[in-house]
């Protein structure tokens, strides 16, 4: 059964699929649940949604390459401030221009338009992706994310405009008035239903082999999840892999010779001049010391997983924080913790 499942779900790396497919597979709103505030609060009509989509997209297209080129050496807290400054520089003139236009839809956006400057979309994507990748890859990611975000925002805007007032682009189509859908609860509801729809769509496409590996990014059924869990467990059975992951994440010192790791003596019997339990190294310090090496330091099988299952797992579960270490490492750490918790649970159950 497990072997059959494995055959059905080949590991497909990010490189093997079109870069734009991330707009669907790793959609920022429907899969990663980022940049939600403008969508649920303001996207109540097509025109308002277009404003949000354009502002967020331009902000992202500015921030990601800039982060990759210049900001990656700065500490994370300073980088976040830079994204915010860029957002303000974009939104304040825009607010000035739109106020001059005296557009009622834009006027209805009220204080929410300036809040686009502080949208979490750019900060999260820059911290998850741009700090680890080169500029062309960042541009592609920014474009894919902007397309994914914009599409969902516009879709939400159209649905809420129609359900709320029976209109499209301000023109009355039918007499219909469920104004409650304009409130944030309506936004959450529409986004939630769309997220479920995307999940179903990706599963269906994947089953028909149209978007190969699409279901990797989605939460799997319990039995499928067990297959994935088993794969992860096998991966972590290798002590050396485990040590590398822990080193790259800053939990263990990176210079441990492999021989020591294979016999699992990390915490026991250290050399006399070193502390018995190595002091945790801040992830930021490790990333700074290793520079671009953090992602590259991973073994090939982990790197492959980072781009497929782990990436999806991170996106779906929202596990990864804005950390300067590799997404794969952060996800691997989570997976490791999850497996350890599972082991403990199983031990308790067996007792």
């Amino acid at each position: 059964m497990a072997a059959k499942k494995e055959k059905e779900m080949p590991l497909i790396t990010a490189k093997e699929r079109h870069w734009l497919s991330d707009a669907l597979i790793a959609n920022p709103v429907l899969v990663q649940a980022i940049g939600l505030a403008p969508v649920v609060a303001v996207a109540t009509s097509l025109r308002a949604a277009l404003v949000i989509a354009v502002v967020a997209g331009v902000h992202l297209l500015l921030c990601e390459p800039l982060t990759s080129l210049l900001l990656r050496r700065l500490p994370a807290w300073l980088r976040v401030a830079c994204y915010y400054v860029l957002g303000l520089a974009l939104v304040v003139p825009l607010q000035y221009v739109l106020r001059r236009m005296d557009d009622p839809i834009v006027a209805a956006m009220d204080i929410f338009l300036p809040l686009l400057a502080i949208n979490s979309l750019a900060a999260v994507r820059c911290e998850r992706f741009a700090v680890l990748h080169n500029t062309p890859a960042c541009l592609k990611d920014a474009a894919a994310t902007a397309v994914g975000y914009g599409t969902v925002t516009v879709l939400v805007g159209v649905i809420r405009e129609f359900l709320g007032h029976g209109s499209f682009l301000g023109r009355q189509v039918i007499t219909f008035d469920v104004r409650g859908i304009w409130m944030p609860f309506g936004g959450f509801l529409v986004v939630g239903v769309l997220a479920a729809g995307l999940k179903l769509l990706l599963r269906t496409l994947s089953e028909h082999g149209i978007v190969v590996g699409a279901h990797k990014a989605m939460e799997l059924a319990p039995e499928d999840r067990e297959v994935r869990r088993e794969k992860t467990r096998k991966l972590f059975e290798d002590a050396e892999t485990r040590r590398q992951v822990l080193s790259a994440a800053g939990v263990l010192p990176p210079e441990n010779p492999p021989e020591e790791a294979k016999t699992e003596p990390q915490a026991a019997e250290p050399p006399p001049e070193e502390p018995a339990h190595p002091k945790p190294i801040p992830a930021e310090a490790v990333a700074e010391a290793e520079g671009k090496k953090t992602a590259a330091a991973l073994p090939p099988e982990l790197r492959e997983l980072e781009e497929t299952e782990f990436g999806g797992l991170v996106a779906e579960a929202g596990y990864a924080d804005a950390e300067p270490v590799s997404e794969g490492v952060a996800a691997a750490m989570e997976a490791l913790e999850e497996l350890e918790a599972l082991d403990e649970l199983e031990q308790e159950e067996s007792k």
Partner: protein
Amino acid sequence: MIREQLMAMLTAALYAVFLYNLVFSGGLGATEIIRAAKKNGGMLTFSLLISVFSALTAAICRLLTVWIPKLETVEFQWHVLLYGSVLLVLYLIVCTTLSLVRFKAQAYLLKYMGMAVLNTLVMAVPLLSFQLGYNLPRTIAMGVGAGLAFAGASLLINSGMHLLQQNKAIPVMFTGVPATLIYTALLALAFTGFTGSSLFGVGGEA
């Protein structure tokens, strides 16, 4: 006099928590709240940071408009720029101080500071309090209320997420993010009841 001020502050805080819950009725800080709720720890730290920074930013902005009366009359985008700059300067001062002083929770605080401070919820408090014409005590109370609203909302979503994860009856396509968002929608609907808004138009009137 003091009693009146305290009552006004309490009203402003309650307004931000219940009557116009900034998270559920305003949709502000939606991403942060779902991310914070996913983690079992850190929700209180998050809420505290939001309370402190929104109250401080709003209070400084309010004082600036009192000291420089011209600011009351400038166009809205200049308010945005001013409030945004005040928040940024505050954030940079606190982060620089934290990065210079060594203590146990330093890495933890610096890690979450960006997400907790530079978000729509914190930025909305000074803008809303300006629009509502709040005085200084009410502005501070609204900032504290924003943090309380965040704490309450994240606790509600966190406990709901645990229940949703255990519920095997949920169709696979609705598990995970969709279920969380729909659950949040239902909570937001409940809070909408406090606002007295009508969900349906009367006689087709928009």
